[in-house]
């Protein structure tokens, strides 16, 4: 535990300053998962270093903000629906967590959700009350990574993707829920160049047992026309 804490503290200190690169982010995620994502000592250290890092901003002399920027930001508040129920906020929150951890790997996003209770928190506060939120990574033969965040028994899950290959025009990634009877379509998505993909499912993937992703040239096909590029077993 003590050894864990020394290493985790070192990583958290750098993370709070934005100094971790991808491998550091992965290492921190792995260590915290193994050590216990809800360890109160780790959360306290993390909170303290974030506080210190945030306050370092005040060593810099403030710069005048153009009135146009203020106007632009205030105008946005008129269009932006507040609260975790709005789709923008749901995606924005995921993005926020991802960016806060300073990485772009989907494992980071998934860890962030679990550690910080972002989208995970949203799922957990659903009608079913607190449950056991799980994260499963897809195995893939294509570039990029995908993770599934789900709660067994809940008819809601989220697929997070990062670094996926941009597909030729007209092609889409299609999700499949696979059970003994074979694959059933579970929605399509594209990487729109934002680097992060968030797909919400209204299904319980643990009932099917497996999820797969194929690349389809025509969206909305009833059966896969090619081998899966990503697969995950869902317990």
């Amino acid at each position: 535990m003590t050894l864990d804490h020394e290493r985790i503290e070192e990583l958290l200190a750098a993370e709070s300053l934005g100094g971790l690169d991808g491998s550091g982010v992965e290492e921190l995620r792995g260590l915290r998962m193994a050590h216990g994502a809800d360890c109160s000592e780790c959360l306290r250290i993390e909170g303290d270093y974030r506080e210190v890092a945030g306050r370092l901003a005040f060593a810099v002399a403030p710069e005048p903000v153009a009135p146009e920027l203020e106007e632009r930001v205030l105008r946005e508040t008129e269009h932006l629906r507040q609260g975790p129920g709005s789709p923008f906020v749901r995606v924005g929150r995921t993005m926020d967590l991802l960016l806060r951890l300073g990485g772009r790997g989907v494992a980071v996003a998934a860890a962030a959700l679990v550690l910080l209770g972002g989208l995970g928190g949203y799922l957990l506060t659903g009608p079913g009350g607190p449950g056991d939120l799980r994260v499963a990574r897809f195995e893939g033969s294509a570039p990029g990574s995908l993770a599934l965040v789900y709660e067994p028994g809940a008819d809601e899950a989220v697929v997070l993707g990062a670094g996926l290959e941009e597909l030729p025009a007209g092609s889409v990634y299609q999700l499949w829920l696979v059970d003994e009877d074979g694959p059933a379509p579970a929605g399509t998505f594209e990487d729109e160049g934002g680097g992060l993909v968030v797909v919400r499912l209204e299904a319980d993937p643990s009932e099917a047992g497996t999820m797969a992703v194929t690349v389809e040239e025509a969206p909305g096909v009833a059966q896969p026309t090619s081998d899966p590029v990503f697969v995950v077993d869902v317990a």
Partner: protein
Amino acid sequence: MTEPGAAIAAPPDPGRSPVAASDPTDALDRELVRRLADGDRDAFRELFRRYAPTALAVARRVIRHARLAEEAVQEGFLALWGDPRRYDPARGSVRAWLMSAVHHRAVDLVRREEAQRRRATEAPPDPAPTDPGTTVVEEAGLREERAAVRAALEDLPPEQRRVIELMYYGGRSQSQIAGDLGLPLGTVKSRTLLGMRRLRAALGGMER
């Protein structure tokens, strides 16, 4: 292990957290955040006017690109507006939360931008003006905060301070800093940790 300052930098003391609630500036800010939850745009404007000038200054140092720096500020502040519960009062001050929200976006943008420039040779970003020539008038609480943070930084052993400044204000990663300064990565890591422990003790102490 033989880092200067190692002997004096104490490990974190569980009883002394910089996450202090007894901070008059923060008490005001927390009230503003509470009002955000009711869709109060005046409260949002007040927070923006108080903190955007600092957030912008930091973002410009990190990104050195005026437009992208503004984007980081915009996104950071709107994240709080979009869902004020993102700020957890149990974990720190509003001002540190806002600065972190903007800083992390700035770092993310700079890393992405660096990656893009490696792929395609593009024009380098505009340098940020180092002296905008105008001063921003601030309330007393923030002037004290600036003095305290600057003093805490100045008290760091220079080699720790250098690493922390390159990382936080320069948007450099630990491995980039190791390359920049010709130091082993392990040295950069230990300087970061020792420096942050000292800052944590210094700033935590101030607020008690």
